[in-house]
């Protein structure tokens, strides 16, 4: 998995690509989010458009990121989960946990 962070105002947009899976993608996601929190930012938008799939470890890490941001009074929201990733969020009922957007601008103003 690859990640790239764009800071737009007070929101850190993380463009992810690849697979969020056990042992690699999940660790990469954890590190990316931890860096943002360590830098004192806490509003995080994960752009999932180019994430092809996740396994249960990757899904667990998404939740872990959500909780870590929450602890710092921040939030993690999702942009454009596509195909399989969308199915997984709906199957695990995590749609109820994550605010999810199709449009980046709409997502940005929601923070």
């Amino acid at each position, binding site marked *: 998995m690859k990640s790239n962070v764009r800071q737009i105002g007070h929101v850190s947009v993380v463009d992810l690509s690849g697979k969020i*899976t056990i*042992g690699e993608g999940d660790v990469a996601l954890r590190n990316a989010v931890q860096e943002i929190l360590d830098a004192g930012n806490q509003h995080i938008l994960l752009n999932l458009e180019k994430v092809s799939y996740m396994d*249960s470890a990757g899904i667990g890490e998404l939740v872990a990121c959500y909780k870590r941001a929450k602890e710092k009074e921040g939030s993690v929201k999702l942009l454009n989960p596509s195909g399989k990733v969308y199915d997984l969020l709906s199957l*695990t*009922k995590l749609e109820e946990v994550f605010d999810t957007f199709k449009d980046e601008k709409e997502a940005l103003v929601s923070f």
Partner: protein
Amino acid sequence: MAAETSVKLVIPSRVRLVDLVHSAAEKIAEIAGFSDDEMLNIGLAVREAVINAIKHGNGEDASKEVEILLEVTGRGLRVRIQDGGAGFDPEGTPDPTAEDNLLQTSGRGLLLIRAFVDDVRFNYKQGRGMEVTLEKALKTG
């Protein structure tokens, strides 16, 4: 070996080998004639079951093996995942979609397995370990 189109894989209990097994499962699903989307689902189900065998069954003890049998059957695909662990009660695991569990960071593997294949059977073999069997039928018509 049961089926003419089948692959048996034997791996030590290491998470870094999961991707390889995952790809093999996708390939067999493709050979069996499943669509791209079903192939992804089967791959994910096998992946989760293999991760469980490595982590929970064998406690990531690399001296213990996981055996995966991928078989193209007359109806579709059958996958058997065998670990060397003490087994568990598959009905006794918490529902990860219950309100109170939504923020758990684990516990979703069995849900995914059950969602992505038609049938999942758990069979504890005395002195051997847990055997999980996944079945997925080809859509006909």
